[in-house]
């Protein structure tokens, strides 16, 4: 082994140990995954899309064109600034909820009898791609505002869709017989 890889090995051990220590308090506060916690997470994710029409309005090019045409410079400035803030807030919130679902998935996967390392790696890769892309989109949103950044966001959505597809493949592996005789899936 080269000196460099050994140094990396030692450093990673120390970094992960520090991370473990930092996370321990958080884990102690939320020790187990429960149906209630999940229900809250689902509600939180749903709440991001409660008013789909309103959210669509944030990115509406018609509004931007109308304001650009008829509004005074002050109003224009205020409008673009407000839309940018709203877009950033909404996008951050969506990302946070997806991250929470990922967290729930991992905590649950730890307790399963047959976790699949291959799938977990693919899921991680997809999730990291999503995180990286969403960071880029956030930057673009921050720099250009919601209207000009629409294309970038569409691309991020496609990646998120791919991530969700992988997630659903994982969930298809759930043995249906285990579900029988248990609580209803419908809350």
């Amino acid at each position: 082994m080269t000196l460099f890889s050994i140094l990396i090995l030692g450093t990673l051990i120390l970094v992960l140990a520090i991370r473990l220590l930092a996370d321990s308090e958080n884990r102690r506060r939320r020790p187990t995954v429960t149906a209630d916690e999940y229900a809250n997470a689902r509600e939180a994710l749903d709440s991001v899309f409660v008013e789909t029409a309103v959210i669509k309005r944030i990115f509406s090019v018609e509004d931007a064109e109308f304001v650009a045409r008829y509004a005074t410079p002050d109003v224009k400035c205020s409008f673009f600034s407000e839309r940018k803030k709203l877009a950033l807030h909404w996008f951050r919130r969506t990302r946070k909820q997806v991250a929470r679902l990922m967290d729930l998935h991992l905590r649950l996967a730890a307790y399963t009898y047959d976790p699949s390392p291959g799938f977990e790696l693919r899921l991680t890769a997809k999730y990291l791609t999503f995180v990286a892309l969403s960071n880029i989109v956030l930057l673009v949103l921050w720099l250009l505002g919601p209207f000009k950044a629409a294309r970038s966001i569409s691309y991020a959505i496609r990646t998120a869709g791919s991530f969700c597809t992988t997630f659903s493949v994982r969930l298809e592996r759930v043995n249906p017989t285990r579900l029988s005789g248990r609580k209803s899936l419908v809350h």
Partner: protein
Amino acid sequence: MNVIASGGKAQRAFPFIFYDSLVLGSLSTAMETHVIWWVGTSLVAVILIRGALVGHLRTYPLFYSYIGCVLLKEIVGLLSYRFAPSFYRPLYWSTELATIVASYAVIVEIFKQSLRHTPGIARKTQKLFIAAFALTVSFAATDLLHGRFATASRAIAEVGRDLRYIEGALLLVMLWLFVRYRILLGPNLLGLIIGYSFWVGLNVVNFALLFLPGNEFSALPRRLAPITYVATLTIWCIALWSSRPEPVQPTEGAIERDYDLLAAKTRSVLVRTSDRLVRVMRP
């Protein structure tokens, strides 16, 4: 930690550096290493005594066996140096290797304790451990059988180094699993893991520096090792001073049920989410 005979010179390392210092001079270094040795050995004894008093010996038998090994090694080494100096060097080497092998007991203890509620991950990790162990043994045996080492001490030093690297790699995998799957750990076990990671992590870096050509006598890694040793023992001493309750784990049935419910629901939630995102963002 290690002794390397290189280029006809012998390099002794902690905890017996102080013997060299006493013989070769440098009173301040002698004092420093003397203090470190006594502090370290006292801490080992304290950990063992406290373990017996608070009942950790039964909870973490492998870890305390390792601690017992370390204490025994220190005492035997000291006695040998005082009363039979000619046996000191061969004894040092054999006990050094035995201690490194015994330190694997700590990783097995961590594995046993932390993953006992997560059978799926435990099974996968066990397979990985067996594969790594087989690889390590065959690698070390090949090296020893080919006898390409100049001296026995050099051979043991290099085998010890390789064992530490493998130990480091195994620990890295375990830490990654703990962080990734948010494995619940009690305060005692967490302290044990943190101390062990600190020790192995810095040791791996230290070994890398020591085995760097021309760096065998570097002062930094030689000074770093004893300080790391005492710091690790201090972490263990604090973490295992009293028996703290383990986090409450859900019953086996509840875990299974929760997962299945969540899994089935999450699929629908995520599919719905992706649909909504696309709908919202589509011009």
